[in-house]
Structure formats: structure tokens, C-alpha cells
């Protein structure tokens, strides 16, 4: 069982982030990610139901820690944004671990029906996203939320405090940039 303290801390940090404190967001992430690692380890030991995906695990971990029984819609958007970051980290670790175990370079199908890009590695997307962050961190964040977290434009707009149309435009332009970056890697 968790003590009250990490719970309270998580809620306080969430509040801080909602008020615009980026440092609170990072501390919240660190706190939750440690928790996620423990849960993932438990899953690998077979203690968890097998149908739980990494996504489920991430959601559960956050829910458990923040103990939100009724999620305010702004909380919900921030919750999902946090999930996106954790998903990205957890999936990349997962892909790397699998690759190490298989000792070969495992390609995953990033894009179907697109012969000119073919298979990209989730790792490659990750790297490209890091480079996009150096050009424009906000566009990288939008991609992270959308591609890794499955978030809707409206939710992303809440988190970034932007209009929906702005988010949509930036998502479209970021996708062009990433498309080029991934093509370049594949050549």
C-alpha cells in the first residue's frame, strides 16, 4: 500500500503543473515513473493479469498515485499528457529490452501502405522527436501527446493553453518535419 505522502505530493504537483509550473510536472513524472517501474516489474513476474498492456499499467499507476476518483476535465487532459510522456519512455525501454533479448534489430511497422518510408523503428521516431524538440519543443510535445498518448487535439489544447486550431496546425507542420526526418534515416 502506498502511504498518504506520495499521494498528497502527486496531487500537489499536479496542481502546480496546472498552474503552469513546469518543474512540478517534471517532479511528478519522476515520482510516477518510479512507481511505474515497480508495477512493470510485478507484471513481468506474472503477478498481474496478462492482458494488461503497458498503457493500462501507466494509467493504473497514475490513477493509483493521484487517486483521482472523479477526474476534472482539465485534470484529465493533464493526466493524459503525463501518460503520453510515460508511454513514450516505457515503450522505448520495452522495445530496447526486447531487441537486446532477441539480439537483432527489430523493426516495427510505423506506417502501413507507405512504401517510400517503409518500416521505421520506434527508436528512430524517438530520436527524430528529440531532434524536433531542439527545433521547437512545443511541436515535439504535441507529437508526443498525440502519437504516444493518443490524445485528441482538444485535450492537447487544454494542456498547452493554445487554441485548437493552433494545435492542429502545429501538429500538421510537425508531421511534415518528422516525415522528412524519418525518410532521411531510412535512406
Amino acid at each position: 500500500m502506498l502511504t498518504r505522502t506520495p499521494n498528497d505530493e502527486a496531487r500537489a504537483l499536479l496542481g502546480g503543473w496546472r498552474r503552469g509550473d513546469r518543474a512540478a510536472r517534471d517532479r511528478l513524472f519522476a515520482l510516477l515513473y518510479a512507481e511505474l517501474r515497480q508495477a512493470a516489474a510485478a507484471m513481468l513476474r506474472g503477478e498481474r493479469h496478462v492482458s494488461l498492456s503497458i498503457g493500462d499499467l501507466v494509467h493504473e499507476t497514475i490513477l493509483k498515485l493521484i487517486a483521482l476518483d472523479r477526474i476534472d476535465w482539465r485534470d484529465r487532459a493533464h493526466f493524459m499528457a503525463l501518460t503520453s510522456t510515460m508511454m513514450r519512455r516505457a515503450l522505448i525501454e520495452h522495445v530496447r529490452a526486447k531487441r537486446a533479448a532477441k539480439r537483432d534489430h527489430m523493426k516495427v511497422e510505423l506506417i502501413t501502405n507507405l512504401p517510400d518510408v517503409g518500416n521505421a523503428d520506434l527508436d528512430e521516431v524517438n530520436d527524430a522527436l528529440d531532434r524536433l524538440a531542439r527545433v521547437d519543443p512545443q511541436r515535439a510535445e504535441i507529437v508526443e501527446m498525440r502519437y504516444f498518448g493518443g490524445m485528441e487535439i482538444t485535450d492537447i489544447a487544454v494542456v498547452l493553453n493554445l487554441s485548437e486550431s493552433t494545435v492542429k496546425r502545429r501538429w500538421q507542420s510537425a508531421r511534415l518535419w518528422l516525415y522528412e526526418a524519418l525518410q532521411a534515416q531510412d535512406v
Partner: protein
Amino acid sequence: MSDDRPPASLDAQALDLIDGAMDQPSDSREAWIRSRPVSEAVRDRALTLLSLSPGAAAILPTGGAPGLAGEAPLPERIGAYRVTGRIGQGGMGTVYRGERATGDFDHTVAIKVIRPGALSGALVERFRRERQTLARLAHPNIARLFDGGETAAGEPFIVMEYVEGRPLTDWLAAGPSDAARLDLFLAAAAAVAFAHQNLVVHGDVTPANILVDAAGQPKLIDFGIAAPATAAAPSPAAPGGDAGIHTPGFAAPERIAGAPSSTLSDIYSLGRVLGWLTEGGRRAPELSAIVARATADDPADRYSTVEALRADVAAWRGGFPVSAAGGGRGYVFRKFVGRHRLAVGAAATAASLLVAAFGLTLAANARAEAARAEAEARFEDVRALAKSMMFDVYDEVAKVQGSVDARLKLAQTAQTYLDRLAADPHAPFDVRLEAGEGYFRLGRVMGSTGGGSLGRREEGKALYGRAEAILERLHAEQPARADVSLALGHLLSFLAGESLYADGDSKAARARATRARTLLTALPEPSDRSAGALAAAYLYEGDSYGWDNDIPGAGRVYEQGLKIVADLPPALRDSDPVAVSLSGLLRQSGNVYLHTGRIDDAVARMQEGVALNRARLAAAEGDPTWTRRLIASLWSLGDAQREAGRLDAALATLQDGQAIARAMAVRSPTDAGAAESIALTGLVLAQVQSARGAHAQAVAAADEAVAIRRQLAQRSGGNKGSRLHLAVGLKDAAAVYRRAGRTGSACGALRESRTILRGYADRDDLSDYDRQNNLQPVETDLKACRT
């Protein structure tokens, strides 16, 4: 924030430039970029990136990463289904593709496993209860729910139709035409309307929950995952009400504030979807007005039904292609109405034509707004046309048996007109009076207790509310105006009956009836309308005493009413509206005699009523309202004869009444009043047969009556009056079952009746009459049942 980004590199500048270009239509983006005053390097970089558009659109699908990481092993089976793949993953959980594990037929399904914690316990419980309803929700635009259950680990899952399609966002990205967007919206909204009629609220209407199948048809998924329409009362397991799940941006403000979902919150979400589908610089002002009305912050300001929203969109859609045509449409329409009056028999088809024609007129009117002088004239045109539709065409159509559907179409179109009229704060006094009368009229079509309506009582009630607000305001402004006093008095007299029979509120009924009497008696010159409404006020006031079990009180008021009618000048006394109220007064005063044991007097009064109604019906050539009144009078007479022990006479009277009711139901299958007439006569018929020892016929009649009332209660949206009708029907049927020796059926009916009645009694919402005459007898009879 958009401002704390690092200094713009070449790429960052190019990306910003592309952002600007994205506001342009796709074929002029390149030209737009070339026209911007930026450095050559930035421009070339932007153009290079833009050239990648065709390929980039499909990469990085929303939420694509987890599914592509091959991370979690697929479960082998879920319930009776073999899992064959993972379709997607979202906030709610994971969706798998599956097949029936038994493999007896090829049947691909989508299985949604709901993530632990995604639904509150109360919501899971409610979902479990509602699954049967959802499974019956068969509509071409709704992804069918097949099954549901829980995994071994206790996660709820649902098994849905597998839709071979793409998300609405992708469909929209392909740039469909304006007409295609509106058609898609109309189809999706029809699915929501269908669900509402089946008491299911979607709760989360968003583009993400609308798929487009290979044929281009929308399919709505995730129906009813949020609260069902009937769940207005919070379940005890969810004391705070459940916020459930909803998507920001598409969720109604009251949902965000924590209120449960409702048909009105679905209408809001549909409005947002419509706005989203028609986004862009070209949206017409009328379409914007439709979106604004659907998405009004105050639920009371929205369209009251999805059908009303659809009717507006359809009218606009129909009007669009003729924008090049000039004026004169009012004239064409008037000609059309003139023709139509001669051929109201083909009511349904003609009504839909009327709707289309009316849409053209509205569109024409709105366009004319640009030229002010023309607009004035056009407004008068529309007003005149709509008025003739409300008051002339409507009346003609109403006389045709089986015309309820046609009248609904007319009424819905008329509401569009009324809403526009009522929304104008500067409308002249007469126009506002017209709007008030119009809402009154419309409410009666939508759902009054008197029959001839569609049984949509809650919608009807909302319309009466608007009528009352408008007329009260007018009366306060000009208390001396006789036309306003007449309209308000008539409305209040009518609403007294609604208060009593739809809401079971005898005090409100009495208050409204006395106020109506005051207004109507003070009129300088009585008319058939005022005299009819006045007599009706006496009738409902008397009924309100009866409701409170004060039978002598009721009798006194009925006699006063009969005296008022007798003292009227002959022309008024013989008028239709007065005859209507007289028929009721005769029946009810007969009931008072019956109650006090004066059987012969009772039978005589009721025979007088039957004779009156028969004569009226013969004169009105099959008018359905007189048909209903004749049935009601036969029912009362039959009941009185039964009480007097004249069983053979009672049997003949009731069989006569029921035969007329059945003929009416055949002509008008959607008429709630016709169905109720069969149930009403059937219940007394069952008692008469039971008393004669014909138990098989008695049970059959009781079964049918209960089945009809159950259906009516469902159709009414759980309206109190309809549910009380069901409870009383069950009670009466139980006595018949018991005498036939069917104790099990009797006890089952009593239990169900008690559940309904106690539900209201526990909330202190049951009248004294119902406590004494229904709940108490049911409780007593139940003591003989094993519990």
C-alpha cells in the same frame, strides 16, 4: 505558452510559415507561402516540407505508438471470443479484434476491454444493467452491441460490431463536399435520435466515436457507455452523480460541471460535431445559427430534440442548391398550401413536401436580410405562411385519422419558425402573442394527455412552459387586452388538466384552473373558445378534488360547471369546444353519483354523455377527437354498469368501446391515445369477464392492457403519469389473474405495481388518492403472496 520558445532557427521559421499556410485551402498553400515576405531560405525550406504533404498525412496515427511497439501479448480469448488482433488503444482501454471461439460461423467483432478505473463502479453496474437495452439498439448507423461480460480478471468488456472503416477525422481530411458533410451529419444525428427514442443517451458524441464505413456511412460507437436517458434519478451507488467520461470540447458545460448526460447534452455534442464538420471560412450564417442553438450554454435554450436539430439542418441542406433563385417563393408556397388543403388525405407525403418548401422559404428569407426593405416584406410573408401552416393546414391534417406522423412533421417545422420568432426581442406584440399561441399548439401535438398526440410528454411540457412564459409576460404588459387574457386563460385551463394527469399535481391543477376561471369569466364577450376553456377549467378543478379523494368537493364543482354550460346562449352551448367539456362534465358527475351509490343517476348521466358524443362524431364525420371522447364515455358507462351488477349490459358497452378503439389504433398506429383507449376499455372488460366467470377471456384482456401500458410508459420516456397508469393497470390485472386462479401472475403484477408506486411514495411524490386507492390495496393484496 507560445511565447517561451527558443529563438527561431531556419526550420522553426519554416514550420511557422507552414502553420500559416494550413489556414489556406490545400491548393493555394504554395502560392500563399510564395507571397509571404520572408527570406528565400525560409521560403524554400517551407516549400520543401510542404511538398511532403501527400505522404505525411498518414504517418504517426493518433495513439499509434503503443500498438506498433508490439509490447503486450494478446489475450487468447475474451469471453466466448478468440482474439485475433489489436485494433487500438485509448483512454478507455484496449480494443481487440475477435471471432467467435466456437467457430460455427464467420463473425468478426470488436471487443473493447474497459481499463480498470476508466469507469466508476456505479457506471460499470449501470452498464451491466443497460446491456440488454443497448443490445436491442439496432440501427444502420449504430455499431451493434452483441455481448458483454467480464474477463477473468474482472475487467468489463463489450463485444461490438466490427466496423470496416476509418475515423471521421480521416474522412474529413480527404476533403468531402459540403453536401456530403451535411448528409453524414444527418445520418449520425438520426442514429442519436433513434437511441433517444429507445431511452439511450450516447453521452460522449465526438468525432472519435463516429466511424465512416466503406460505403461512406457513419457508424456511431460506444453508445450508452455514459448514463442512460432514464437515469435522471441518481443511483444510490453514485451519490454525487457520476461524471462518467466525456470529451472536452464536445462535452456540454453542464457535463463538465458534473451533471449526468442527457438528451440535451447529446444535442450539444452533436452541435459541436456539426460545427467541427463545417469548420472553415465558408460557413453560412444560418448554419452558424443552427450550431449556436444546439450548443447554447443553457440546456433550455438548445433544440429540445435531435429531430428538431436535424429538421433545421435538413431544411438548410435542401435550401442550399437554389441560392441563385430570386424572390417570389412565398407566393409559390402559398399556392402550394392552397392546393394542399384540397388533398390532405395524402398527409404524410404532402407534409414532407411542406417541410422542404418551408425550408426554401426560410432560406430565402434569411438571404433577404441583407436588403433591409425586402426583408420586412419577406418576414411578413414567412409569418403568414407559417401561420397558415400552424392553424389551417394543421387543423385540416388533424381531422384525418392516422395523421399523427404528418402532424409531427408539420409541428417540428413550425417550431423552427416559432423559435426564430420568439428569439427576436424586438418583435411586435402581436407576433409575440402568435409565438405564445404557437408553442401552446405545438405542445398539444407533441404530448398532451388527451390523446391524438405522439405521447412525447416531456417535450410537450417544455413547449407549454415556453408558451406560459411568453403569455404571462404579455398579460403583465397589457392586462386589459382580451386576446391575451383569452390565450392565457385557455392555456391555464388546459395546463390544469396536464398538471393533474401528466404530473399528478392536484394543487397546481386547482391553482391553474381557478386562475383560468378568473381570466375567462372577466372577458367582455364570451366566445366558443372562452366558454369551452371555462367549462374545461371546471372539469379539471373538479378532477383535482377527486384526485385528493374529496368526492363531494368534486361533485360540487362539476355541478357548477354543468350549470354554467346550461346558462350559455344556445349557439355557444352547441359549439364544439363547449361540447367537449360538457362530455367530460357529464362523465365525471356520473362517476360522483356512482361513488355515492346513486347507480341509476350515474348510468343516466353517462348515457347522456354517450349520446352527446355519438351525435358529435356523426356530425364531425369520424373526427378522431370525438372518436376518443365516445370511447371514454362508453368506458365510463361500462364501468358504471359493471358496478351496478349489470354485467351483460356492461359487456356490450365495453366491447363497443374497444372495437372503436381498435379501429382507431389500426388507422393510427403511433397514436398513444388510441393504444391507451384499448388498454382502458380492456381492463374493465377483463373485470366484467372475470365477474361473469369467463376467466380465459378476462386474462387475455388483462394481459393485453398491461402490455400496452408498459409500452406506453417506455415510449413516454418514463413520464410519471404513464408509469402510474401502468401501476394501476397491473393492480387491476392482478385481481383478474387471482380470480382466474393464476396466483403467480397476480403476485408478480402486484410486486411490479408496488415497486412503481413506492418509488413515488418514497420521494413523497404520490397523491393521497393513489396512496389510498392504489398503493394501500396493492400492499394489502401482496400479504397473500409469498415474498
